[in-house]
C-alpha cells in the first residue's frame, strides 16, 4: 500500500493534508482496513475547536467504536456531510474521504507528524505484531 506523500500521518492512523492554514483530516487506509465495515462516523460541528492529540469524534464499524484523534489543532470550517449517510465511503477510499476541514491554529504542529514513508514503516511494524 502506497500512502500519498501530499499529507502527514499520526500513529493513531489519521491523516492531515494542509494547504496554507487550512487542512483536511481523515483516517488512513490501514485504519479503515482494521475497522472493517464502517457504519457510523460521529464528527464535531462547524465552528467547534479541536486540539492536537485530543478526541474529536469517533468512527464505528459493526463490531467496534474507535476514537478519532486530532492530528492538529484548529477550528472546524467544514464537515463531510456525505459520511453521515454513506460512511462506507471511508472503506472505499479512505484517503479521499476527508472528514473535517479546519483552519490550523498552529501549522507548526504538522512538523512533528509522520511522513508517508515513516507511516508506512510504522504500519508494517504494527501489522507484524
Amino acid at each position, binding site marked *: 500500500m502506497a500512502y500519498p506523500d501530499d499529507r502527514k500521518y499520526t500513529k493513531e492512523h489519521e491523516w492531515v493534508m494542509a494547504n496554507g492554514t487550512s487542512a483536511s483530516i481523515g483516517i488512513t487506509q490501514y485504519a479503515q482496513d482494521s475497522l472493517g465495515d464502517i457504519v457510523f462516523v*460521529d464528527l464535531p460541528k462547524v465552528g467547534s475547536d479541536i486540539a492536537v492529540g485530543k478526541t474529536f469524534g469517533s468512527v464505528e464499524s*459493526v463490531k467496534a467504536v474507535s476514537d478519532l484523534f486530532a492530528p492538529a489543532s484548529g477550528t472546524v470550517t467544514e464537515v463531510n456531510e456525505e459520511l453521515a449517510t454513506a460512511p462506507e465511503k471511508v472503506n472505499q477510499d479512505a484517503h479521499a474521504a476527508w472528514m473535517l476541514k479546519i483552519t490550523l491554529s498552529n501549522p507548526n504542529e504538522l512538523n512533528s507528524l509522520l511522513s508517508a514513508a515513516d507511516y508506512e514503516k510504522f504500519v508494517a511494524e504494527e501489522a507484524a505484531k
Partner: protein
Amino acid sequence: MSVVESAPTIRKTALNAIHRKMGAKMVAFNGWDMPVEYPATGGLVAEHMAVRTGVGIFDVSHMGDIRLAGPQALAAVQHVSMNDASRLAIGQAQYSALLYPQGTFVDDVIVHRLGDDDYLLVINAGTREKDFAWVRDNTQQFDCRVTDLSDDYTQIAIQGPKAHLLVAKLTDANLAALKGYWFTHGTVCGLKNVLIGRTGYTGEDGFEIYVSSDEATSAMVWNAVLEAGKEYGALACGLGARNTLRLEAKMPLYGHEISDTINVWEAGLDRYCKVEKPEFIGREALLQAKPAGPSKVLAGLEMTGRGIARDGYRVLDQAGAGIGYVTSGSPAPFLKKNIALVYVPPAFAALGTALQVEVRGQGVAAQVVATPFYKRPKI
C-alpha cells in the same frame, strides 16, 4: 528453587492455520485465537447476510463438551440444570442452564440425550473449566461419570436457509426427518458416526457437526463443507457475524445477558426453567424471588436517534436519569437498524417506551421494541 514461568497460553482450534491462510482477521476471544471475520470474502456484514439468505460456516470448536454417563446420569443432569431433561427422547436436545444456588448463571448449555443414561452438555468457551469443575463437583453423589470432551471435537456450524442443502451433499443421514433441536449420527465426508445436530446460534435453521479434533480430519471436513457450499454462495463466518446474528435473534451471550449476577427471571428465560421439577441447584432461590418479581428485566431497544448503543453504555429515561445498561448493542446488518439488549426496571420495559442511551456523554433516543428483533420466516 526454580520458578516455572507460565505465560497465559492462547488456545487454537484445529482449524487455526486454515483461518489464517484464508486471511481471517483474528482476535483473542475468551483465551482463544479465533477468526472475527474473513475480509477476503467480504467481511462481517457479507457473512451475516449469507447466513440470513443463504448459508454460512463457522468454526465453533472453542465451545466445550461435557459428557455425563452412567446409571444416574439423568438425575445428575436434572440436579445441575434448570430445564427438564427427563422430557428428552434419545436424539433430542434442549436449551438449559447451569445455575448457582442463588439462581444466577454458571453458564447456559445445550443438553443432548445421547442414550438411555448418556448426556452431552455443550457449553461456552469462556466458561469451560468453570463449568466442568461445577458439574463434576456437584454430581459426586450420583452414580455417573463426568468427562470433559472439549478437546476431542472440532465443531462446525452450518447455518442458514440453505444449510440443509449443503449438509445433505455430505451425509447419508436423513436430514428431512431431523427437526430443530434434534440430532442424529451419520456418515459425514466419509467419517462414520458423526453427531449432526439441528442446532445453532444464529436464529436460522442450521446444523452443528462434531468431528474429531485431529487437524487433518478437521481440515478435510472444513474444506469439504466450504466446497459443497460454493453453489449456494456459502461464506466462512467469524465471531463478528456470530454475535450480530445471535443478537438479532435475542439469543443470550454469557457475560452479557446472563452472568453470575443475573438470575433466570431477570433474563426472561422462564420457559426454560422448570421449577415444577422437584429439585435443582438454584430452584429454591428462584421460587423465593418469584413473588416479588425481578427488579430489572431484559428488554430490546431500537435506536431512533443517530447513534449506536454498545455493551456497557448507560440507559437513561426521557429526563436523562440513569435507569439501566446495555448488555449487547450493535448495528443489525440484516435489519439495518441499531439495536440493543438492555436491563431496565420493569416499569420502563413496556413496548413503545421512549428511552435514551448515553453515547459518549449524549442521550440518544431509543424505543423499547418487541423481541426477538429478528424471527426467521416460517416455511
